[in-house]
């Protein structure tokens, strides 16, 4: 069965520092991979996605992620973190259902705290 692992539950970085959030997935076929961000009391906002092609994908708010098939990873990065980036970040993999639609399987999330 498909699964997503985010090994870091909490991460604290200083504003202006670089950031890398780790994500590993387990899925038999070529995955569709996503990063979502959730601010307190808010819904899930899509940061970026990987379907195929270039393994380095760019997203909103200056985020990028790199797909590494050999490591089953899809780590999220940002060169310089802003205080407004403090939120919870979820990695997800889309898995095909037997009928229409593809459900998302989420990791447990990484809570990012930014120190000023």
């Amino acid at each position: 069965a498909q699964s997503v692992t985010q090994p870091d539950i909490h991460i604290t970085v200083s504003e202006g520092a670089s950031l890398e959030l780790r994500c590993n997935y387990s899925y038999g076929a070529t995955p569709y991979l996503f990063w979502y961000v959730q601010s307190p009391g808010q819904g899930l906002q899509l940061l970026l996605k990987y379907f195929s092609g270039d393994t380095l994908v760019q997203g909103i708010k200056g985020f990028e992620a790199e797909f590494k098939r050999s490591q089953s990873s899809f780590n999220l990065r940002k060169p310089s973190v802003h205080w407004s980036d403090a939120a919870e970040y979820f990695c997800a993999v889309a898995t095909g259902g037997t009928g229409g639609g593809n459900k998302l399987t989420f990791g447990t999330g990484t809570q990012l705290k930014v120190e000023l």
Partner: protein
Amino acid sequence: EPEVTQTPSHQVTQMGQEVILRCVPISNHLYFYWYRQILGQKVEFLVSFYNNEISEKSEIFDDQFSVERPDGSNFTLKIRSTKLEDSAMYFCASHMDKAKNIQYFGAGTRLSVL
């Protein structure tokens, strides 16, 4: 930018009562989902819906749950007899293209069962 809207934002109910959570997906989307997130835990898939029928459901989605698309715009999740453990944030999501599966999420309904 079009968005998925969910109502109410917070629902408080007594154990054993029926609740209906409402969602208006993005208008040209064809695939609809419900997910839930128990406080402090990860987001979990409940059910997917396409072409007026359930296409997949999780173990969580038992006989107490049902979904409906009663008209061309609304997508509802009904819980027939709520339990304490149903307390969670419920998210609706939709997307248009099965191949790309870019799911857009609503802001969620927080369900509190007392």
